[in-house]
């Protein structure tokens, strides 16, 4: 049993943190959000140079074969810095290719920071249910034809390629008949509506109208799409949990600092016992969430699918609860300053809120946890 990070992991974290402090401060971030693209080419280059884009990519494709723990370390730092670049979208998408062992050229481009990817899973009716897919994939002579509409695709308009879920058969919510495809965003029939998200990101609604993709665009084995989707979405959950921990650390430490400096009634407000205990509660929530995020990173690669689902859902639920509590209380303890856009605390709160409802909210994952056979049968 060993909870220590390796020296490499610690160094990597420090490198990312130094970059954030130097080049991705609160003001720079504000400018990026306000820019036309909503992302920063310089930041992307920096992430590539740091090795962050290569980290999850297998060595054979020019990457570092980084583990989920390595990714945890990076995501925590990006979370702490509130980095809104398409890093999550790209590495989340890359994991589909890794697990499908396909499109090595794309993985190479990811490693080199030459490409950005995004993941298009949600539809208007699906809410948190990723099997609720109406987009169709019809087999054609030399591949498939996609029709349908995906919504809230994070960085969908900034990506070069998309991972798209679609149905070759079955009704909405059937686990059978789901397939995943890699699709060029400049393919004929793909139209994208780009918009801002309330947490500073970009997302897009993307229509697919008779989009032709070759047979090799299909990821994984035929009719095995759901298992791939389920497993990789757990990988995405693990990334989000780690990001949330980084944000919680930052927002908790900002709040603690505020309690120590802000004066009311002639004393720092941190002298009021009610606020002290609130802060203690936030601290405990963070530590419990951190434990689960760590466990999630360890178990996301488990060969035991039930153990993976059970742990990842537990982690997302627990982190989600902590994210909500810590976000709300950090704002409350900041008083009026907490509800302005002028301090990072509000931005952290917004991102924490959105993480809670991304890739399944707390109740979704509690229900998924309960649905695993082990919930009732475990000894």
């Amino acid at each position, binding site marked *: 049993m060993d909870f220590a990070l390796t020296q490499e992991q610690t160094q990597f974290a420090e490198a990312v943190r130094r970059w954030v402090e130097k080049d991705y401060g609160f003001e720079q971030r504000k400018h990026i959000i306000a820019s036309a693209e909503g992302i920063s080419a310089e930041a992307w280059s920096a992430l590539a140079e740091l090795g962050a884009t290569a980290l999850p990519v297998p060595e054979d494709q020019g990457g570092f074969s980084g583990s989920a723990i390595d990714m945890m370390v990076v995501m925590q730092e990006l979370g702490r810095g509130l980095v809104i670049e398409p890093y999550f979208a790209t590495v989340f998408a890359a994991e589909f290719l890794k697990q499908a062992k396909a499109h090595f050229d794309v993985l190479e481009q990811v490693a080199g920071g030459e490409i950005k990817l995004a993941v298009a899973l949600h539809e208007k009716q699906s809410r948190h249910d990723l099997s609720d897919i109406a987009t169709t994939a019809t087999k054609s002579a030399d591949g498939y034809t996609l029709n349908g509409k995906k*919504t*809230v695709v994070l960085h969908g308009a900034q990506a070069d390629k998309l991972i798209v879920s679609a149905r070759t058969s079955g009704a909405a919510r059937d686990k059978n008949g789901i397939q995943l495809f890699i699709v060029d965003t400049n393919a004929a029939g793909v139209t994208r509506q780009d918009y801002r998200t309330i947490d500073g990101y970009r997302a897009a609604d993307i229509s697919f109208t008779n989009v032709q993709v070759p047979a090799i665009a299909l990821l994984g084995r035929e009719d095995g799409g759901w298992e791939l989707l389920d497993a990789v979405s757990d990988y995405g959950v693990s990334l989000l949990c780690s990001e949330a921990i980084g944000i919680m650390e930052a927002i908790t430490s900002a709040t603690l600092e505020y309690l120590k400096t*802000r004066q009311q009634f002639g004393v720092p407000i941190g002298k009021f016992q009610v606020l002290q205990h609130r802060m203690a509660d936030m601290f405990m929530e963070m530590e419990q969430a951190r434990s689960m995020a760590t466990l999630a990173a360890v178990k996301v690669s488990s060969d035991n699918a039930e153990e993976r689902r059970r742990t990842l859902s537990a982690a997302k639920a627990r982190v989600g609860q902590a994210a909500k509590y810590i976000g*709300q209380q950090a704002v409350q303890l900041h008083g009026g300053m907490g509800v302005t856009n002028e301090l990072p605390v509000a931005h952290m709160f917004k991102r924490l809120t959105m993480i809670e409802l991304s890739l399944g909210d707390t109740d979704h994952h509690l229900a998924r946890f309960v649905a695993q056979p082990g919930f009732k049968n475990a000894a």
Partner: protein
Amino acid sequence: MDLNYTPEDLAFRDQVRSYLEANLPTDLQQKVLNHKRLSREDFVRWHKILAKQGWVATGWPKEYGGTGWTPTQRHIFEEECARAGTPAILPFGVNMVAPVIMAFGNQAQKDYYLPRILNCDDWWCQGYSEPGSGSDLASLKTRAERVGDHYIVNGQKTWTTLAQHADMIFCLVRTEPNGRKQEGISFLLIDMKTQGITVRPIIMLDEDHEVNEVFFDNVKVPVQNLIGEENKGWTYAKYLLGHERTNIAAVGRAKRELQFLKRVAAEHHKNGQSLIDDPVYANKVASLEIEIMALEITVMRVISQDSGRPGPEASLLKIKGTEIQQRLTELMVEAVGPYAQPFDPAFLEGETEHSVMNDDDAAALAAYYFNFRKTSIYGGSNEIQKNIITQMILGL
């Protein structure tokens, strides 16, 4: 014990309801019901419609142009306005400065300001909070020095709601820097067009421009704009704080929003069924609905005991009311899940008819949730309210 309205009350309710059905402009109503942002014109327009009916000042005595309604009638009116989805009558003029002018102003002040407030000829804002003061209001530092027949005001106010639209501001200023902090405070009315006043927006976390900083740089204010006596302002401010809590529980709005929540939850899904049919979600909605039912009765108990002027019980109403409002917005965001993420200020400002991802119900909800975090902070944070309960009710 009889929790029913009297036949007279019911007749009054029907009268208000019919009036609102006939007179509330649909475009304003739609903005309110769909959580969009109201412009200066929207507020003024509705104020003037109500003014024509004589229903602006529900808390004023008749002699000043108030309705002279009973506390129950005021409650019914507020409930009906909330139910219909009217814009608010902003409290700064009608409910905040006006009662102070009535109680402590001189005849000239009453004659001049009160009719203008009734008719929304002046847009008022409130100059209380300062950057350093927060919950410790009396520690304010903005100075007003008497020079001849003027005060020269220097300093800064903050959290000044909608000051960007304002014609007038009522301010607490320090006229005597020595002694206890509660003493030496005066209550001044200041024309916002006076030279030396600068308004700087504070953008809220939902990117709305609701509040401002107001800077005073050698602002000349005629002495006749002083309310009551110099250095007695804290007394007037405390009087006003008592008045501020009218309808603070906002049960009427909560009931309307609960219906919105149920509708949205019926239209979104979990496990292939309507979210409202999901036992876990329904359980949360039910708990919230019951909390609203309870608060409605609690409000009526307070009204029936205190002839409409709640004492420290107002703190309970404020805490429970804001908890309910925040929980409503939380469950709304939860209902729409990932569709809360897109952010479309143009839609919120009414510049586009439909939201960018074409889910007009969902489009405003995250902003609404974030915006409502302020409710447990402003008007005396909920922690301060619990201090009040602790001291004034429990005697600890």
